[in-house]
């Protein structure tokens, strides 16, 4: 962190000074003042960082995580572990040189509600994550070293005691209850809390590049470039290029970010939920515990159809906001088999006998194919001439499936117990045709489940029945602490 601060401060102080002034200063006889000023800035930045580091402490309690930070404006944050939505370990490029990580614990409190503990040594971050997940899962965890919840310095220096008494180890099988939990089978030791993970799949680099080349953003970029070239030839003005540069840079930056962010994407499953690991410059290792996925979207952009590739995105509470693009991807690109495998990791049971048939019909079926989907009536083709055959929904025992889109095909899956609220809307044209659009409101994220232009009767029935289904599914839903359900 200090190193990063130094680098950034150094860059800033160089950038701030006007170039001309800098050159005259360097060539003049008072050149040494520049060095002194730089050193002063570096010293101030360094001491600020040291102070900030000293003020940042965290502690793990029985049911909460505490974080204290800030120098002038102090902040204390307590997060309840049973409300934990995900635990991510992020390693930016600079931190990687020093072997440091930042651990972020998302709770469902909206933007900036997470607890970011940074920076930690890599192994400490892994252990902390394992401990947090074990506690959030409802396993009994005791610290054999200092009393539980003793403040620990959030820094490499202070947590340097490795694999020693300061470690969290699980209490052996609790004498009275919770027998037969899978985690307790693992021998106690430094890594004993780490739930065993099974790799499921990884995305080959070639396919990732091909998928980005065939993505919607790339199509837009190429079309834009063609327009620019045509305009340039027609007008003979080269200034067109420089005028269109910002848009090209923006699209290029997005594509580059997608490529580096989703580089070496690996999906694994563990008792603590789905594990994702990805990134080239900044690596992220995400853990999404069971039952935290609010909605899933499978989407296929138009040029992916030939290879039958799909992208899987999720809504997880706390993942919304600016980092949505990086966090909410469960599979950047994969075959249909892989996409459905990933879907089954987060929603293991759809509550039907033959999920594959329903899912296939949702992915590329339309109203001409025989399926259980309730589709939009033929009269809506005037409202949605391209995709009206695709608009539809079906209900299974555990989830609501909504499909739409013909160029860009979309299938949204919302488990009944994760429905927040339901909406129905109808414009003047829709009223005339006797149709209405149905929405499921989910937490902030890339998935916005809706079924456009349903027959008014179907929509009203779906609205009434879905409210009932969501209620009974919530009553039957598993506990927030996911390991407790085996113990009972």
């Amino acid at each position, binding site marked *: 962190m200090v190193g990063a601060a130094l680098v950034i401060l150094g860059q800033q102080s160089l950038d701030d000074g006007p170039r001309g002034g800098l050159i005259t200063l360097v060539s003049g006889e008072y050149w040494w003042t520049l060095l002194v000023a730089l050193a002063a800035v570096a010293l101030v930045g360094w001491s600020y960082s040291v102070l900030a580091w000293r003020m940042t402490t965290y502690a793990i309690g029985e049911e909460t995580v505490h974080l204290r930070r800030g120098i002038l404006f102090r902040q204390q944050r307590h997060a309840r572990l049973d409300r934990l939505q995900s635990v991510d370990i992020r390693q930016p490029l600079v931190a990687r040189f020093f072997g440091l990580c930042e651990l972020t614990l998302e709770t469902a409190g909206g933007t900036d509600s997470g607890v970011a503990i940074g920076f930690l040594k890599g192994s400490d971050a892994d252990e902390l994550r394992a401990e947090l997940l074990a506690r959030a899962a409802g396993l009994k965890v005791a610290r054999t070293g200092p009393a539980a919840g003793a403040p620990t310095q959030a820094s490499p220096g202070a947590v340097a005691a490795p694999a020693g008494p300061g470690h969290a180890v699980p209490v052996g099988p609790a004498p009275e209850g919770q027998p037969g939990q899978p985690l307790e089978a693992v021998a106690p030791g430094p890594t004993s809390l780490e739930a065993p993970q099974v790799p499921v799949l990884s995305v080959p680099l070639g396919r990732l590049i091909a998928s980005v080349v065939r993505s919607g953003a790339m199509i837009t970029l190429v079309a834009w470039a063609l327009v620019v070239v045509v305009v340039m030839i027609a007008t003979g003005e080269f200034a067109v290029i420089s005028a269109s540069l910002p848009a090209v840079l923006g699209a290029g930056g997005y594509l580059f970010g997608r490529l580096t962010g989703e580089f070496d994407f690996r999906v694994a499953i563990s008792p603590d939920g789905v594990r994702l690991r990805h990134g080239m410059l900044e690596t992220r290792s995400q853990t999404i515990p069971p039952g935290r996925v609010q909605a899933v979207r499978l989407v296929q952009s138009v040029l992916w159809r030939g290879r039958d590739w799909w992208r899987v995105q999720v809504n997880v509470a706390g993942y919304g906001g600016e980092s949505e693009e990086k966090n909410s991807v469960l599979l950047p690109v994969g075959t249909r088999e892989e996409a459905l495998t990933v879907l089954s990791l987060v929603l293991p049971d759809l509550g039907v006998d033959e999920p594959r048939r329903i899912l296939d019909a949702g992915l590329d079926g339309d109203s001409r194919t025989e399926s259980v989907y309730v589709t939009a009536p033929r009269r809506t083709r005037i409202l949605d001439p391209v995709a009206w055959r695709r608009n539809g929904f079906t209900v299974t025992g555990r989830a609501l499936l909504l499909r739409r889109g013909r160029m860009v095909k979309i299938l949204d899956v919302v488990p009944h117990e994760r429905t927040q*609220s339901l*909406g129905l809307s109808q414009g003047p044209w829709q009223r005339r045709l006797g149709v209405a659009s149905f929405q499921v409101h989910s*937490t902030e994220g890339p998935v916005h489940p809706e079924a456009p232009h349903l027959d008014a009767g179907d929509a009203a029935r779906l609205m009434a029945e879905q409210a009932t289904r969501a209620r009974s599914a919530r009553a039957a839903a598993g506990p927030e602490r996911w390991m407790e359900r085996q113990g009972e």
Partner: protein
Amino acid sequence: MTSPFEPHDVTWSRVSPRLVTAMLVPATISLGIPMVVGVVLAVTISPWFWLLAGVPAVFLLWSILLIPRQVRAIGYAERDDDLLIRKGVMFRSMVVVPYGRMQYVDVEAGPLDRKLGLAKVQLHTASVGTDAQIPGLPPDEAARLRDRLASRGEARLAGL
């Protein structure tokens, strides 16, 4: 054809008609000022400024006609397990919010609302998409609804 906005087992409560005043006053101010300016300029400088006066006048007339209908279209209903809110004349919408999904309830009243004896109740779930607000409630009814929603939400509270 039955409307999907009229579930059969629901009795809708209406909001106070004073909401018409509360909505018309800001509309009159924001549209009336450019209208008056336009009229003054048209009389003193050039008849072309009648255009400037005409456009807000049309919008104002439209609002005066539409707002009473919009207010009458707002309805809410407390069912056993969820709250229904509907609104809109041309573009209709209805939202169902289960009590167990409510994260918090806001009661707001601006200066004009307070003068007229009105308050707005807004429900928040974990979704930003939930647009569940009931404007134009008398303060007593707003307080009653708030307490009732809070207690029902507590009784049916579920995780996310």
